[in-house]
């Protein structure tokens, strides 16, 4: 009887992507992001210590000033909270146990067809910290702070051999808050919601020291900041995700939440961001994510669907098609934990006529193992 009631309760939501009231706390006692939250910046660029999972994510395409070299980059800092009762308390000492951080950094040399990446897992303390007052991250070679004046970020990522990427990232559009009532939903679980904020177009400018040579670079970047306590629903095993910056100064964010049975979750979504930062979205039953080609990693043997076609009904324009193909194939991020391997890389975007219409970053996660179990 109870099951019937639950199905009846969730059925409309599953079919239409409608509202499910989230719990206030997860089973472990972590707070769950709540609706209609009004973030205050720069404070909310900082860490939300009490929440279970949080990440700051930058990707972008860069070009050497006055040169031909093209690069893609990715910098992600993850934060995982420890004991729910302790996590919200302030950081202490050099070897804390309230927060755990991970840093993932990658550089794609698109002309040279090289992919550099590295990761670190660190506890809060002398090697990893994140301010809860503003954007101020220092985790395993990634440093990010607000630029003077409070608009934009300074991002620094180190690579092996003293290579270094230093960028100033200035938003071209206002911050976008995704989801309904300020909550982005990732599955049916009542706690599977997040605060999901993005700068969808950042002007990037800075310098890159690469293979012993320092060059000035510029380009366009994307930044996500997501906070939750239960990132994926129980029945999900991973996601395919992309952020597209179109040549017409609009952006698209699309993701397919993959269920363990191989089907796409209805909470998969496509968002369109117009020139002014206004968003429109459709959920899973209104778009399709079609795999056109896969690439098998020679290192891990994992098969990634790296070339995909996204077909969607855009509410204001009707059917649109975006074909994403990797600029270089091998952009597989193999971390220290092999079962966390994922593919994250720079892609070109073309329309159904084959014309290049933009650039994208594509993320294919959960192919090495059940990511849902880890992010729950």
């Amino acid at each position, binding site marked *: 009887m109870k099951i019937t009631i639950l199905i009846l309760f969730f059925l409309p939501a599953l079919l239409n992507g409608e509202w499910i009231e989230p719990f206030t706390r997860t089973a472990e006692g972590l707070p769950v992001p709540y609706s209609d939250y009004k973030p205050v910046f720069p404070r909310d660029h900082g860490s939300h210590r009490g929440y279970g999972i949080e990440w700051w994510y930058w990707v972008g395409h860069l070009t050497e000033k006055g040169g031909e070299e093209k690069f893609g980059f990715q910098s992600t800092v993850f934060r995982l909270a420890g004991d729910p009762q302790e996590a919200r308390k302030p950081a202490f000492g050099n070897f804390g146990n309230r927060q755990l951080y991970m840093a993932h950094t990658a550089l794609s040399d698109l002309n040279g067809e090289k992919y550099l990446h590295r990761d670190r897992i660190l506890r809060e303390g002398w090697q990893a910290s994140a301010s809860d007052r503003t954007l101020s991250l220092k985790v395993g070679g990634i440093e990010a702070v607000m630029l003077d004046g409070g608009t934009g970020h300074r991002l620094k990522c180190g690579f092996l051999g003293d290579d270094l990427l230093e960028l100033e990232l200035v938003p071209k559009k206002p911050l976008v808050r995704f989801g309904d009532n300020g909550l982005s939903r990732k599955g049916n679980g009542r706690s599977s919601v997040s605060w999901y904020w993005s700068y969808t177009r950042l002007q990037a400018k800075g310098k890159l020291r690469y293979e012993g040579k320092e060059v000035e670079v510029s380009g366009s970047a994307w930044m996500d900041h997501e906070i939750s306590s239960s990132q994926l629903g129980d029945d999900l095993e991973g996601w395919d995700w992309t952020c597209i910056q179109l040549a017409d100064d609009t952006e698209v964010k699309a993701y397919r939440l993959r269920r363990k049975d191989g089907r796409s979750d209805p909470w998969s979504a496509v968002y369109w961001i117009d020139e002014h930062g206004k968003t429109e979205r459709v959920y899973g039953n209104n778009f399709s994510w079609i795999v056109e080609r896969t690439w098998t990693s020679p290192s891990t043997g994992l098969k990634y669907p790296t070339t995909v076609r996204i077909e969607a009904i855009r509410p204001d324009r009707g059917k649109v098609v975006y074909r994403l193909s990797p600029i270089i194939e091998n952009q597989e991020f193999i971390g*220290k934990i092999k079962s966390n391997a994922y593919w994250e890389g720079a892609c070109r975007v073309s329309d159904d006529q084959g014309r290049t219409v933009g650039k994208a970053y594509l993320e294919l996660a959960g192919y090495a193992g059940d990511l849902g179990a880890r992010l729950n």
Partner: protein
Amino acid sequence: MVRTTFRHWRASIGQYLLLIAIVAVGVGAFNGIRQASRAASANFGLFNEAVSGRSDFIIESPSQRISEDTLSALGSLASYPDWHLVPVVEGSITALDEKGEPTGQLRLVGLDLLSLANLPYVAKRPIEFAEEESTWHEWLGSEKDVWLGRGTANKLNAKKGQRISILASGRVKEIFVRKILDDRDLSVSDDLVIADISTAQGLLSRKGEINRVEVVLERAELREDTEYLNGIGNRISSLLPEGLSVGPTKNRAVDRAAMTAAFRLNLTVLSLIAVLVGGYLILQALDAAVVRKREETAILRSLGVNGRILFLTGILEAVAIGILGSLAGILVGHFLAFGAVGMFAETVNALYFATSIEAISLTWKDCATGLLLGFLFSLVAGWLPARDAMQTPPAQILSKGDWSPGFLWLRNPRFGLSLIVFGALALLLPTLSIQGGSRMPIGGFLAAGAWILGSALLSGQILVCLAKFCHGFCQSPVSRLATSRLMDGSSRHRLAVAGLVVAVGMVTGMFQMVDSFRSTIQEWFDVRFQAELYVSERGVTGAGSVNGIDPALLDELLLDKSIDYADVMYVCHAKAAQGITLLAGVDFDAWTGFVRQIWLKPPGTIRPSSGAEPALVSEAFARRFDVLEGGTVELDTPKGPKLVSPIGIFSDYGNEFGTAAIAIDSWKEWTGADRPINASLYLADGSELEETKQRLRLSYPGLDVRNARELRDVALGIFEQTFKATSALNAIGLAVAFVGLLLGLFSIFDESASTWSTLRHLGFSPVQFVLSAGFEGAGIAVASLAGGTLSGLAMGWLLIFVVNVQSFGWTLLWKVPLADFLIFGLLMVLVGFLSGCLSAIHWSRRKT
């Protein structure tokens, strides 16, 4: 020739196997000691490497302690992807049994268990610290959770989930066994306890402090690339905060090897003596064989066989024994190393630094050295009998009576006297500086060798003189026969005496050194340790465990109303240009006032240099850094280089690296540390010593509270430990020498065959023959004892006044243990007598 050589092997295979075994033991002793001392003392001493893998660089402060403020300053260095920084805190803890009694010392190593996952070594073979990944926050930084290897768990009889009481930094604490790491690839030593760094800091009462930061390169494939390593080293060095230095981890092994260089050199010299004595045995045995084959050799000579051929057969035999024995010796040495390594590791732990036993490795160099050593010694040992065989006269001449070749060099005292003079001149040689600031008394060793050999060569004269002296008092035919044979002083008699003199000289010399050391330390204790009670960390002994007492705990203890004054001592390592030394913080007023010392130069007799910190230095320090007459020594401290200048020199037998004691305030300022190592308590008038001791023990179960006598027992225990290897080698040397005597006597009786047969015809009974042989053996023993004691006294003098002073900077009081000498002498004469009797009985049976 080969057939002639080895024909006898088939007939007396047992005897030749014994010879091979003797070479094997000699080579084995040398090789085994070499391997064991290497495994025990030359490791990196980085106990965390079982878990984190071997590092490439070490960032450390001169005091081996880094504050967490300094660590925070290293945060930016940690952000470089080319390397991983691994902070380590370590210390000694002692497990307690159910009754609260210490059961064994353990090494607690604290690491950041989470960031270990970043290390390439760990990434390849992840360590599961918990069954559930998500529980990290439960055990990371917990108060008590520790991980044990299977060996430690077995040693403590501990199981997962068990709580164990421990002593740490003077406090009783509890650990919780979170998991036993059973991974077969994880070679965790059986005294290692692993904890999260924060947990270890708490258990050791050392919050906010680490010992060092290890640097592990991300690109493991480049860790042997010198250019790359230099580049990384320079980059790290340029980013370090003041007071820290970085150096390749490999240097640490070199430094540690340098610290124990003198110790290992002494062991090598002792083990070479074992080879020497083994060579002597070979000589005796081959010589006995030559004598036994005398008739056959004489017939061959009569048949026209060239003397050179006979010589070559003898050499071939010796070489075969040498090679076979060496090959066996290499194996024996390897197994011996397993037996000896624990003993050496204990000594290194007690005297030098914390160490664990590295895997005993048998290298090609070991094999080659062993083979060469056995080959050369056998060749030298075989040369004399081969020469003897070559000189054997034809059968017609031999049949006319006993024949024995004359070794002129054994009869001529000039050789022996020349060696004695050479030895004396060698003493004029300066010492040789070896790595780590140690000095090798090259002249002393040369003199020791020359004098022992010289006295061995002269011992034949002693034998003859003594026999002549005794002959006048002998009335019975048995004793007259024995003394007259000794008076003749045949080469074989002289050879037997010479071998024994070497062994006796060595043994009696060591007797003196050990006894002098013991007496000196006892006297030092009587003068130096005048306080009523001594407080130190309980269960922790040895130089490798400079843990210190929790300062808050000692402050609390010192509030006890029974204590009138406490002489609190602080100690840490300090680095000088010549090597590691110790920097102590002491109550300077008390040390220059009422605290008693054996002063070589009392405070005030040396003027301190201006601009330098006045220091009271130990004799070892003064000699090592050449400041016996004053001057300055620059020491690296966490606060940069500092100068100390001696104002007085005291005797100290605690370490050979030297100690410079400065005022406590300066020590704390220089080192940034505040952990005392011990305290001497002077009680207030009217306080009951025993009652106070018991009360303090009950109140502070984590501290050792001892009176002077108990402290002396502990110190002497450590002292005895250090001489275990010496005693073992002494015993081997002596045993081999007695076997040599027995073999020598066989040859002597073999050679006198016609004499015995004549005597038998004249009515000499078997009992008289055996008795006469016994007296002959005893006579050889007495002569060896006389010669050996004289050379032993010279050895004792050399060891105490030359070798010890030059090597370790210790002046010892020379004590001759007369009672030991007497017992040893009686035993020797008895063994000599019995050897004579036994060889006579054996010889008679063989001949009948």
